[in-house]
C-alpha cells in the first residue's frame, strides 16, 4: 500500500491541477448498475427499487475497499426547474417497461426533430422553441414533465447525501450534451450527418442558438448541489465519425466556449469522450486549464498523454470488456501500464473506460482500484 497523505478530494484536485498526488486517484465511473447486479437486483429493480439499489451501491463500495469518491452518486438526473431545461435530455428505454426486465437502460434514439426545426430553433431561441414544442420530445403535459424533473432532481440530491454523509465525496453536479451530440441524438446519426452536408448553415445557426442556454443549464445544475463538475457528453463529433473540417465547425467552437464559460465560474468540465477522438487530441491543448479529458478505451490514451501531458488532466480507460471477461491479472497489467505511462508526472485519474459495465466481475473492479492504492508511477 502506498502511504496516503491526501484526502480523496485533495488527491483528485491535484490530478486536475496537473500536480503529482500522493498516489494516483481512482474513480470508477457509475458503479450503480454493477453494484446492483452483484447484489442480485434485476434491471427493473436497479431503476425502480430505490432503497435496495442504494443499499447495494453502498455495500459494494465498502466491499471494494472504497475509492476516491463517486463521480455520479446514483442514476437520476439533476435538472434546472424549467421545461426547456428538462426536455433536452434524451429518452431512455427502461428495463421491465420498454425492455425485458433483466436488460439494462439504453438510449432511445429516434428522429424527434425535423429539418425545419433547425430554423425554428435559430429564429425562436432554444427556450421559446422548447416551451412551444416540448411535446416533440415528451408526450406528457408540461406540469407532468416539470414534476418529473423535480422528482429526478430531489432523488439526485438524496443520492448525493447518502455518500457525503459517509464522508465519500461526490463530484458531478450536472450533465450537458454538446450541441452536436444533442442534435445527433434527436435527429439520429444518419439524418444529422446528412444535415451537415445538405443544410450546414441552418445546423450551425441552431447550434449558435442553443449553446448559451446549455452553458447556463450546467451552471444551474451545479448550483443545486455543491458538486463542482459538469459532464460534457461527447461522442458523435470525434474522428470515428467525422473529418476534422466538420469537427472544427460543428463541435470544437462549442466545446471550447462551454468549457471556458464553466471554468470561469469555478466549474470543472468533465469531457466524456466516448468513441475514438485520437485525431482530435491536438485541439484539446487549447481547452482551458482545469478540465478533465475522460476516454473510454477507443481513443489512444497513451497518445493522449504524449499530446496533452502537462496541459490537461486525463482520465480512463479500463475497457468494459476487460472488466467483464478479463482476469484480475490482465486488469492489473493494464492498470499498471496506465499508471506508469499516463500517470507519470501527475495529471491522471484511473477509471473505467465509460461506465463500469453491469456485468463486470467484482474481482476485476477491485483489482483496478487496488492498483491505484499499491502501484506508484515509475520514475
Amino acid at each position: 500500500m502506498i502511504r496516503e497523505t491526501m484526502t480523496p478530494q485533495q488527491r483528485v484536485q491535484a490530478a486536475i491541477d496537473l500536480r503529482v498526488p500522493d498516489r494516483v486517484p481512482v474513480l470508477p465511473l457509475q458503479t450503480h448498475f454493477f453494484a446492483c447486479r452483484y447484489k442480485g437486483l434485476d434491471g427493473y429493480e436497479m431503476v425502480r427499487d430505490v432503497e435496495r439499489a442504494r443499499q447495494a451501491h453502498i455495500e459494494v463500495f465498502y466491499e471494494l475497499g472504497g475509492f476516491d469518491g463517486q463521480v455520479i452518486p446514483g442514476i437520476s438526473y439533476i435538472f434546472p426547474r424549467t421545461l426547456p431545461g428538462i426536455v433536452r435530455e434524451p429518452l431512455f428505454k427502461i428495463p421491465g417497461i420498454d425492455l425485458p426486465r433483466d436488460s439494462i437502460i439504453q438510449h432511445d434514439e429516434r428522429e424527434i426533430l425535423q429539418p425545419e426545426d433547425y430554423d425554428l430553433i435559430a429564429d425562436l431561441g432554444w427556450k421559446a422553441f422548447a416551451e412551444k414544442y416540448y411535446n416533440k420530445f415528451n408526450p406528457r403535459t408540461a406540469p407532468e414533465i416539470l414534476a418529473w424533473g423535480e422528482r429526478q432532481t430531489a432523488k439526485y440530491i438524496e443520492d448525493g447525501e447518502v455518500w457525503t454523509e459517509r464522508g465519500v465525496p461526490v463530484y458531478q453536479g450536472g450533465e450537458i450534451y454538446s450541441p452536436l451530440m444533442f442534435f445527433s441524438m434527436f435527429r439520429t446519426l444518419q439524418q444529422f450527418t446528412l444535415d451537415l452536408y445538405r443544410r450546414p448553415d441552418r445546423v450551425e445557426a441552431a447550434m449558435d442558438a442553443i449553446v448559451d442556454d446549455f452553458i447556463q443549464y450546467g451552471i444551474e445544475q451545479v448550483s443545486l448541489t455543491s458538486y463542482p463538475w459538469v459532464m460534457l457528453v461527447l461522442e458523435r463529433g470525434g474522428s470515428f465519425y467525422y473529418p476534422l473540417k466538420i469537427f472544427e465547425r460543428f463541435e470544437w467552437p462549442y466545446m471550447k466556449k462551454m468549457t471556458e464559460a464553466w471554468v470561469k465560474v469555478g466549474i470543472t468540465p468533465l469531457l466524456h469522450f466516448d468513441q475514438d477522438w485520437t485525431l482530435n487530441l491536438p485541439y484539446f491543448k487549447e481547452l482551458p486549464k482545469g478540465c478533465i479529458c475522460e476516454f473510454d478505451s477507443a481513443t489512444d490514451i497513451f497518445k493522449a498523454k504524449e499530446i496533452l501531458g502537462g496541459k490537461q488532466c486525463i482520465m480512463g480507460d479500463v475497457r468494459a470488456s476487460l472488466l467483464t471477461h478479463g482476469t484480475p491479472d490482465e486488469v492489473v497489467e493494464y492498470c499498471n501500464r496506465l499508471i506508469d505511462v499516463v500517470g507519470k508526472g501527475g495529471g491522471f485519474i484511473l477509471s473505467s473506460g465509460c461506465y463500469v459495465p453491469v456485468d463486470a466481475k467484482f474481482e476485476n473492479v477491485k483489482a483496478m482500484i487496488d492498483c491505484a492504492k499499491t502501484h506508484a508511477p515509475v520514475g
Partner: protein
Amino acid sequence: MSELVDAIVSLKEEEALEIVRYRLEAGEEPMSLVEEARGGITIVGERFQSKEYFLSELIMSGEIFKQVMSLIEPKLTGDIRTETIGNIVLGTVKGDIHNIGKDIVASLLRIAGFEVFDLGTDVAPQTFVEKLLETGAPILGMSALVTPSFESMKDTVKAIEEEGIRDKIKVIIGGGMVIKQIKDYVGADAFTRDAAEGVAICKEFIEVTQK
C-alpha cells in the same frame, strides 16, 4: 474519373442527380449509369478503408447512391443484380439496440460485393439460425456494444451448434468492446473492432469456404 463518379466521390448530391437526370433524358443506357454509380461508392469505400474518408462520407455517399438509383430504377427493364462474392447474415444481437457499427460494416460489405442479409438490431439466436438456413450463407456477423450482449452472442453460437451447422458457418463478432477474450468466450472464429478489417476477414472466410 467520369463526372458522375467524381460527383459521388466528392459528395455533391445535387450535381450527381443532375448528371443522372440529363443522361437518362438523353437516352443513355440505364445499366451503364448503375455501373458508374457503383464505381463511385466503391472508391468511397476504398477511401474509408484506407482511413482517408470518415463515416460521414460513407453515409452521405450511400444516400447519394440511393437517390441516384431511385432515378434510374424506373427506367430499368431487366434484373439489376450483379454477381456477388458471397452471402453473409448480419445483425446486432438480442438485448442490444445499437446499430451504428453494424450499419458501417453492412455498407462496406455491400461495396465489397457481398450479398448482405441484415436482420437489424435486437436479433434473437433462432432468427439468426433461420436466416442462415434460408440463405445458405457461410458467414455470420454479430455486433454488440454493451457487455451483457456477449451472452446473446454465445447463445447464438450455441443455437448454430444445436442446429448441426456450426462447421459450415464462419462466425465473426464485432463492436467497440470486443477483445480476444470475448471471441473465446462466445466461441466465434474471429473478432474485430475495425469495420475495414472485418470486411477483409469476411473475404478470407469466403475464399476458405469456396475451396
